[in-house]
């Protein structure tokens, strides 16, 4: 994947060139303000919420005007690539059934591939995990594969952490290491642009940019390093997964369950939460009696381990208590994924902290598990 290429410089006012190159052939997905929150949507360059700064705390998010000079003056909102590559609701196939035959028709796929602009190191780590889950097996998932295969990735090195970020302690950021076609670093007066693939290299060649100097590369290093140092939160990743495995019966799980509302917000905003469930949808008008038969759609939608139905089988429930459901979520994030896919299930984006209405903070809860019971 990695292609060694010289770094180049893009003037800030020329960021639109990148859009021009991609928008004809791709749906360009990037940050945009909707309802007072920075979300991801199909955008053009004017949608980028330059001059806005987000303030995040446990259970709170606010967007304010700022006089920061950067174009990307904000950090991550609730959305991630997940909403586009693993849609909240997707059609798996349509079916028609009679007594003696079943016909399955695969869905029509979106023809224009996606291009993500401004995707951060944390989310790229999550995407790498998704590739392992949905593409590497043992079975390839068609829905994800079709959306992912031609997606163009324009990554962004963070130069300022969000208030709940802790990627530097998870080893997943703030510097983008791989998994991108091109990566941008916002410098004082320009963007440093590097390519990571042949596709990315081709795009840069079309832009005909000047070469970056050693000073520019140094500025990139300084900025990402400063971003890492400025992070207020951290997790002792070295103690994982052991800390979780040693404490399935720690009394603190019950303490969290007292505060937990089981809304599932954390699983919605988490870029690595992939759990899903499938359903058949049949309208009454799709049922026929002469001859007997019916047709409908099989859909897949996000599911959450906080749902009571999640661990249910007929005749019982494997996780009837809230304590067990929270433990399942956090253990999966911080321990199980490492064993399952060789990558952390928490990328340190802090979204679950910001969007938890009860302000439950995964970094603090993990600290509490270290205390003797």
């Amino acid at each position: 994947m990695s292609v060694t290429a010289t770094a180049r410089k893009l003037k800030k006012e020329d960021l639109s060139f990148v859009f021009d190159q991609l928008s004809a052939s791709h749906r360009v997905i990037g940050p945009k303000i909707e309802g007072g929150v920075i979300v991801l949507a199909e955008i053009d360059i004017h949608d980028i919420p330059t001059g806005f700064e987000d303030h995040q705390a446990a259970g709170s998010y606010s967007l304010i005007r700022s006089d920061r000079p950067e174009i990307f003056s904000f950090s991550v909102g609730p959305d991630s690539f997940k909403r586009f590559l693993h849609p909240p609701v997707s059609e798996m196939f349509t079916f028609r059934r009679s007594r003696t035959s079943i016909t399955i028709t695969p869905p029509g796929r979106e023809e224009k591939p996606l291009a993500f602009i401004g995707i951060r190191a944390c989310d790229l780590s999550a995407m790498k995990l998704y590739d392992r889950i949905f593409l590497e097996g043992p079975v390839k998932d068609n829905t994800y594969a079709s959306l992912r295969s031609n997606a163009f990735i324009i990554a962004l090195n963070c130069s300022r952490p969000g208030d709940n970020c802790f990627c530097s302690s998870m080893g997943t950021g703030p510097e983008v290491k791989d998994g991108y076609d091109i990566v941008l670093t916002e410098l004082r007066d320009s963007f440093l642009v590097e390519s990571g693939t042949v596709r990315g290299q081709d795009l840069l060649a079309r832009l005909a940019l000047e070469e970056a100097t050693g000073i520019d590369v140094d500025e990139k290093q300084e900025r990402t390093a400063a971003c890492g140092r400025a992070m207020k939160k951290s997790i002792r990743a070295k103690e994982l997964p052991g800390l979780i495995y040693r404490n399935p019966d720690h009394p603190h799980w019950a303490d969290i369950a007292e505060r937990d509302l089981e809304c599932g917000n954390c699983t919605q905003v988490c870029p690595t939460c992939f759990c899903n469930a499938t359903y058949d949808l049949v309208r009454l008008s799709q049922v026929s009696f002469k001859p007997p038969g019916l047709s409908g759609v099989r859909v897949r939608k996000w599911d959450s381990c906080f749902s009571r139905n999640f661990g249910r089988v007929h005749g019982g429930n494997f996780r009837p208590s809230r304590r067990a459901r929270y433990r399942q979520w956090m253990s999966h994030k911080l321990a199980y994924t490492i064993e399952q896919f060789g990558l952390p299930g928490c990328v340190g984006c802090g979204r679950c902290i910001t969007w938890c209405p009860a302000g439950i903070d995964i970094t603090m809860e993990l600290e509490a598990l270290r205390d003797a019971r």
Partner: protein
Amino acid sequence: MHDRSTPFEATIKWTRKETRDTFTCAVRISNREIQKGYRFVPGQFNMLYVPGIGEAPISMSSSPLDRDIMHTVRIAGDVTTALSLLRAGEVIGIRGPFGRGWPIEEAKDLDLLIVAGGLGIAPLRSVARHIMKTHSPKKKTAHPRRMLLYGAKTPKDIVFRDEFPRFRDTFDVSLSVDRADPEEYWRGETGLVTQLFDRLSLDPVRTIVFVCGPEIMMQTSVRELILREVPEEKIFVSMERNMNCGMGICGHCFFGPKFVCKDGPVFRFSEISGLMGTKEL
């Protein structure tokens, strides 16, 4: 390999009531190409699909060498109820086979002990039929020994009751029920299936054990086997979870860090001994 997220059509060849709440349905894959490419190992499962209702994970209860694929099902929810209402000639969807089955090869020259509880006999009947079809000598021998212990709630709940005489040709069979019906003649044991261990003199060095049944029954069985010095590495259990996708992408079947659908459902006990017994994992 056929795409695993899209079901293929299979025709029901016959169905048979086993007990008051279980039945067996034998199906044959409609498409010849898919039928030829379809190979399973005892212990694996299919997702059976009734379009408009949904899917249920059901293990195969036939031998891979049987012409039709049999599934023995308990009527428990919407899908299994819908399945129970279908008759020969009607069709269902199938995805599979999924998961890791029983280590038949590893068991070949060892003494094999099969311990089943309730409907847990279904994936083990697949093993028993397979052994009866493939391994020679077919008759009982001193070595390797083949033993089958089965526990059910009551004599009426014994699944495959008619087949036990045939199992006895190859296996030393012992049956136990939780409670016998005083109205009915019962000459087997009464009590937990694990009580039957006492009558076997196991050679722990050359014994391999396959266990399937309710989780508590499997835990008790494993404990008893370890007391009798059977190593954890030679004990295999088949776990039950809420399998939904079958291929490790939906998250419903997590048993700690294990995906029961793709890492299991059959586990070597030594792989999961640290997880067994943790409440609500």
